[in-house]
């Protein structure tokens, strides 16, 4: 149907962050009344693309973008979200944009309140007009009814509502905007139960029939295929496929999404695990309240001498596990290490038990950036195990000799590129900082090492080196490692088993040689035994 007008056309969108290209010549269009699916792994550039469309400040602050946007037949260059909203673009956010202390009506009408004049407002400012709650509530009711979702009272407070209801309030707010021509849904069903999701998908189809263009971002490929007219697959900032929904399959989309990434990372063969490995770490029903990386109850074991990988898309809880075990984020459940219970929410307990952690946030948590390399190396061991200390009379003082010896040894062993042990860590490159983090964790002589995102933000050569180090520690010293990474390729290179997280629970535990499609499907939740949303209510 060539006659259907195009609502949104993004042409040749290219965006770099500090010389690092995240979008390369992306073309995307949405027609009136069309539901257009957008799928891709995290880091594929979906969020950046949406930020550009919404004129989020972060885009301007990092040097803008190149390419054109045509919205509703006109050139469109949003510089702030307000302009996008005024033009008729609505967004249903992944995280809730609701004010808990407000009622449903107040939230739906937030900053679009209906007001009546009074004598003060005539004298001073329209800001002093009285709110017309009755009309506001009537409008809200209409918007909620349009979604055909039962059970939301327009006067009820939002705090304490089931998550699914909040999602519908969010959507009701967007469709209450009269001029809305394009609605963007960023993973709207991630928090919904099966039945709620079905209602939502129905509502989307109804909205599309009213002539609203819909951009639907989701990891649930079956949903995408069920309701979308077309699907675009984004990988590494490039569009790798654009298909009519009827002409593709879930398997094909999953393969396209993960793809085979080229890269020169080569690591010697994995150590073969003994068949009857002893379980050193037993995790039961671990829930971690890490903002943005919530874990909703996972149970798994780690065998002695194993490298266990934890992968999954961002926001699905993979980073939460290590932070929860190490007591850095509020957690509940049970973690036993070598038969002894580790008390959660207490980092010292985990460290004393022989666990060491290399955080994903190395610049903020991992390192004292303005301290010397050797002090960074020695600090944790000094604190936790009393290493590098000696006693002088009644005082315990640091032992510079042993610190220096250890530092020089480490610099050699880990191939840290530095001017010397007194260089401050801030001046080191990202890769060398990462080596310092790992070396320091090793200085604790841990029995189990947890590393999160060890290769994030470092160059290819350093990545190779870091992976080699981890592999060597495992092979030569028999160190058990839990490695969390967004880079599936790396996990598949060195891990013995890989846990894939989805929606805060384990979607599957895969061997490294499982197929691309298998990984893709597991990561997008197609293979998880249950929908996580079923359990979730706020009460």
């Amino acid at each position, binding site marked *: 149907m060539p006659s259907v007008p195009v609502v949104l056309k993004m042409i040749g969108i290219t965006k770099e962050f500090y010389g690092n290209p995240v979008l390369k010549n992306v073309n995307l269009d949405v027609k009136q009344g069309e539901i257009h699916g957008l799928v891709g792994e995290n880091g594929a550039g979906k969020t950046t693309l949406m930020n550009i469309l919404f004129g989020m400040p972060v885009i301007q602050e990092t040097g803008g973008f190149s390419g054109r946007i045509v919205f509703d037949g006109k050139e469109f260059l949003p510089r702030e979200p*307000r302009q996008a909203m005024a033009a008729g673009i609505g967004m249903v*956010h992944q995280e809730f944009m*609701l004010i808990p202390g407000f009622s449903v009506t107040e939230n739906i009408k937030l900053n679009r309140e209906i007001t009546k004049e009074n004598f*003060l407002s005539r004298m001073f400012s329209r800001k*002093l007009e009285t709110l017309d709650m009755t009309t506001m509530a009537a409008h809200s009711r209409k918007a909620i009814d349009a979604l055909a979702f039962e059970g939301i009272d327009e006067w009820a407070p939002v*705090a304490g509502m089931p998550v699914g209801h909040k999602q519908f309030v969010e959507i009701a707010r967007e469709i209450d905007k009269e001029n809305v021509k394009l609605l963007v849904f960023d993973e709207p069903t991630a928090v919904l139960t099966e039945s709620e999701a079905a209602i939502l998908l129905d509502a989307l189809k109804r909205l599309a029939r009213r002539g609203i263009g819909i951009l639907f971002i989701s990891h649930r490929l079956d949903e995408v295929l069920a309701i979308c007219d077309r699907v675009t697959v984004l990988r590494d900032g490039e569009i790798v496929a654009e298909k009519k929904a009827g002409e593709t399959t879930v398997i094909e989309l999953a393969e396209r999404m993960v793809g085979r990434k080229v890269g020169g990372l080569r690591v010697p063969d994995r150590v073969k695990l003994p068949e009857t490995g002893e379980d050193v770490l037993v995790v039961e029903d671990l829930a971690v309240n890490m903002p943005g990386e*919530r874990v909703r109850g996972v149970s798994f074991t780690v065998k002695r001498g194993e490298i266990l990988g934890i992968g999954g898309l961002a926001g699905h809880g993979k980073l939460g596990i290590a932070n929860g075990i190490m007591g850095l984020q*509020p*957690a*509940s459940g049970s973690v036993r290490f070598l038969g002894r219970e580790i008390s959660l929410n207490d980092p010292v307990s985990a460290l004393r038990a022989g666990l060491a952690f290399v955080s994903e946030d190395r610049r903020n948590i991992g390192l004292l950036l303005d301290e010397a390399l050797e002090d960074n190396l020695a600090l944790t061991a000094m604190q936790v195990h009393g290493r590098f200390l000696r006693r002088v009379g009644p005082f315990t003082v640091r032992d510079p000799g042993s610190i220096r010896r250890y530092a020089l040894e480490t610099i050699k062993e880990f191939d840290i590129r530095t001017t010397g042990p007194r260089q401050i860590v801030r001046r080191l490159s990202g890769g060398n900082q990462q080596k310092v983090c790992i070396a320091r964790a090793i200085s604790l002589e841990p029995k189990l090492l947890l590393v999160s995102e060890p290769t994030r933000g470092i160059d290819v050569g350093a990545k190779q080196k870091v992976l080699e180090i981890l592999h060597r520690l495992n092979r030569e010293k028999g160190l058990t490692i839990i490695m969390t990474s967004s880079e599936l390729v790396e996990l598949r290179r060195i891990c013995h088993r890989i846990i894939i997280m989805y929606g805060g629970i384990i979607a599957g535990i895969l061997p490294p040689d499982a197929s691309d499609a298998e990984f893709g499907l597991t990561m997008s939740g197609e293979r998880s035994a249950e929908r996580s949303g079923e359990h979730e209510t706020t009460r």
Partner: protein
Amino acid sequence: MKVWRKIRESLTSSPIPLVFGILCLFGVVVSGKSWSFLLQEVVTRLARNWILVLSLLVPVSAGLGLNFSMVLGAMAAQTGIIVMTHLKVPGILGFLGAFIVSFPIAVVLGFVAGNIMNKAKGREMIAGMMLGFFMNGVYQLVFLFMVGTVIPMKNPDLMLPQGFGLRNTVELKYMKYALDNLLNVSLSGLVIPLATFALIGLVCLGLNRLYKTKLGQDFRAVGQDMHVASVAGIDVNKTRLLAVVIATVLASLGQLVFLQNIGTLNTYNSHEQVATFAIASLLLGGATVTRATVGQALAGTFLFHLLFIVSPYAGQSLMGSPQVGEYFRVFVAYGIIAAALVVHAWEAHRRALSAAKRGLPEGETDRAG
């Protein structure tokens, strides 16, 4: 039975007013003072203090916490009073004149304070307190040094014998009771300043109306979640700025009412404890750092000042020394603020932890703390 349950619920949900209510009752009994004496004292002090306490409400609703920078409003008011006393404008005209002079000063100071608080989001209380100390220095510079030197002024009644700088204590002979005596009634010996209470009523009504307007809605939205408010297109910084300006103007009005009742101006001290006592009053009423109502402001001021009145007498009759009671009431004023802040921090921490146990993200529990 239903009524009884409702009473019980409201009592258990606000333990602080309950505890202090009992304490006050105890003090009243022990002090051995007559009801008519206490009532007169309380009425006087309520008329004197209520507007100052009410001025705290807007910043709390806009998420700025307890506004320690209300000292700035008090300074603006004192400037207005000094000008009117110098010009020898008597009675209510002097009061109005002082308000007209202090209004623009309060707006400017509120603007400055608001901008600073926008740069210190999440640390508004300490920023406001420090700003108060800083402005105190500027205030002293102006009135201790610049008056009579840079600012030409000659008035031996107001100024130090050296020829510049104001006296420590200025008697407000033209403005004393300017508002209180405008209209008052006497009920069997109890004098009630009706005009002052009318003004207080007006402020209460105004605040209540404000919360029903678009602006009030913006305050509440920004106060609960700045991020969501800004995504919805509300100008967060401007809204917060406006909240501080309104609060500063109200505080200056409050200080005018306060000083016309006291009748003397301690040029360099009158403003200093304004914030501490007003904040303690508000917290005594059961308000928290994030939630405060007109009712809590009114009830808290009543309790705080009743305690203030009876504690020296109670100390006298219990320990034989009014100093003990005096000590106790100062202890209470600061202790209440400290306790409220600790409880606030502790609650936030506990909510985050219990959210973790139920596997919820922080903030998806009730925030109505």
